[in-house]
């Protein structure tokens, strides 16, 4: 319960911040793709951040960077938290840039295999 409360406060703070600040300006989507793979994010979320049984969908349109940052550092869901010691701020910002760069998928109605 205490953990949940702590997490909710952090998340609320992050959402508030997200209205007033921007993602790290120097974030690089190409480096982010490498960091996404190097740090094992793909293992649950897929190489495209598509998610699945093991992890949530991250892309397209990931959550705002600040909320993303708070979540990754403090997760109390099935995803373990990733402290700075093992995933640097720079890498995290790059990862966010990579996820933001992933284009929206097609409408399923335009894919014949999903309409049979």
């Amino acid at each position: 319960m205490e953990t949940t409360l702590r997490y909710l406060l952090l998340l609320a703070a992050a959402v508030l911040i997200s209205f007033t600040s921007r993602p790290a300006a120097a974030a690089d989507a190409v480096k982010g793709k490498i960091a996404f793979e190097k740090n094992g994010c793909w293992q649950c979320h897929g190489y495209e951040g598509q998610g699945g049984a093991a992890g949530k969908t991250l892309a397209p349109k990931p959550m705002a960077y600040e909320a993303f940052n708070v979540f990754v550092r403090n997760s109390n869901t099935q995803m373990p938290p990733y402290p700075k010691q093992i995933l640097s701020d720079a890498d995290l910002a790059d990862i966010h840039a990579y996820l933001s760069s992933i284009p929206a998928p097609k409408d399923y109605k335009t894919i014949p295999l999903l309409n049979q």
Partner: protein
Amino acid sequence: MARKDRRRFLTGVLATGAATAVAPAVKAQEKETERAPTALPPTTQVAALETENPGEMAENRIKGTAGSDFMVDVIKTLNIKYCPANCASSYRGIHESLINYGGNKMPEFLTCMHEESAVAMGHGYFKVAGKPLMTLCHGTVGLQHATMGIYNAWCDRVPVIVIGGNDLDAAHRPPGVPTFHSAQDIGAMVRDYTKWDDTPISLQHFAQSMVRAYKIAMTPPYGPVLISLDAGLQQEVIKEHGSEKLYIPKYVPTSPPQGDSGAVKEAARMLAAADNPVIVADRAARTPNGIKLLVQLAELLQARVIDQGSRVNFPKTHYLSTGPAAVSGADVIIGLELSDFWNTVNNWTDNGENGVGENSSRIKPGTKLISISASELLTKSNFQDFQRFQAVDISMVGDAEATLPALIEAVRSAIPNSRKDAIAQRGQAARKAFADQEARAKQAATLGWDASPISTARLVMETYNAVKGLDWSIVSQSGNTSNWQNRLWPLTEHHHWIGRSGGFGVGYGAPASVGAALANKDAGRISVNIQADGDLMYAPGVLWTAAKHKIPQLAVMHNNRGYHQEVMHVQRMASFRNRKSNYGGDMGPVGTRIENPDIEYHKLAESMGWWAKGPIKDPAQLAPALREAVKVVQSGTPALLNVWTQPR
């Protein structure tokens, strides 16, 4: 055997056979004139043996009929079609009788390369055919190999008849290796996860044990059984059992247990009065009829159904089909043969304080819970397959499918006219929710659609497109494809999906798929196996068994090049401990990846007689390869495509 004794035995068997199950065995024998049965009028040769000088007329060195021939007669009365097994000296007597005296039919011996594969083949076969197989193994080293397969069958409530050869007589058995392969009590190894075991010490004892074993295995809740078969007994010459004549007991199926009638009525009243009843089914549909019954119950109540997928319990295309989250809005939940009721209504998050998991509820306070399950009749102490204890409001010990007709009638009687409009409105809401749920699943499938490695959604839907016009059956257990086949394929028939392994012991998938494909071959269906890479490598020899015995299937590798469940566990531990995970030059933690070098599954399969192609990494190459592979499978040859995939 003395001449006088032999004459009495033959007369006795004939007299008994008229009134027992020997008769069908004799009928079967009439069709197979090439072998010498144990229970027929004496042939010229046997008659000569009765009257002439034995030394001059004996045709064999054992001077009579082998006990294992009688064992084969017993087995034949049970109509067991196949015997997948890895050969072993401790059952050489019955092995020889099966293939020579028995004509290698009913059962047909299938050459397996691992005892665990043989058991899993029986497991998969049952889930399609609804009939059990038997397997033979060394009672010691072979049974040790077989144990995980037996455990999976136990957890999945599947009957498999395991016969372990064992040489009990220390004074007469061969020294050396055969003595290493003997034990006092082989059943001890598997007694915690078999329904019953026995060690017959006479042929008559064997006849009783074999029929009893079959009967126990096939009484719901189903489960595996073991017979320890003495090597000496197999090889000894048939003789009388004291003053009794040898006979084969008739097998009569046992009716499955039903829930108590009072409890059924109480449950019906609760369901009829509910505002939002939810049905959860795991192994409710033992047979195709179970699906029909569940549809009746759901439509009567307009209650949404969560199919947890150990069997096809409910058509995925039905508007009342829903996902696990539906329990959160329920006021009454009825669980039918759930393997884990606690985890159905509670949640465990592997991320609490100090790295210990946290519990939370998935349901509203006051939600009433009803359980119908036969599993309580099968609870033992050591292995924890009974899961956490969940208190419920009505608990019925009985087989769900057998109880459903009474429950349906009771619910029909319990619904007052005043409730009928509200129930109909519930159905309308469910139709809309179903349409939304389907659209969401399809849209989610588009994510990563053109990615390389290939997304699991794309893999599954390209495969469906290749077989959709055929009578198909998914013979793989894999939920490791994010369950896309369960979310997007129109699973409506019992054989459309064989469910999971039960005990989640890895290595079940490939051999179970071959067993299920064998049953589908007999039914004229095409088998589709989304084959996990790690699972295949436990005992890939089953690929050879499939080719050897011409058991076709379309195997599409979900080759994510890792043990992904474990990849994530180690990653989680490292994160909890503020440590960077050591990847050792691979793409995941040391010890969890299957890469450097990559396994060329297509070459592996090809070397064992399969048609194979790969590696396929570009999604655009998948459809033409699948078309080609399906044609091969339709010609009777197993085919494998090695596809590089996303992790889940």
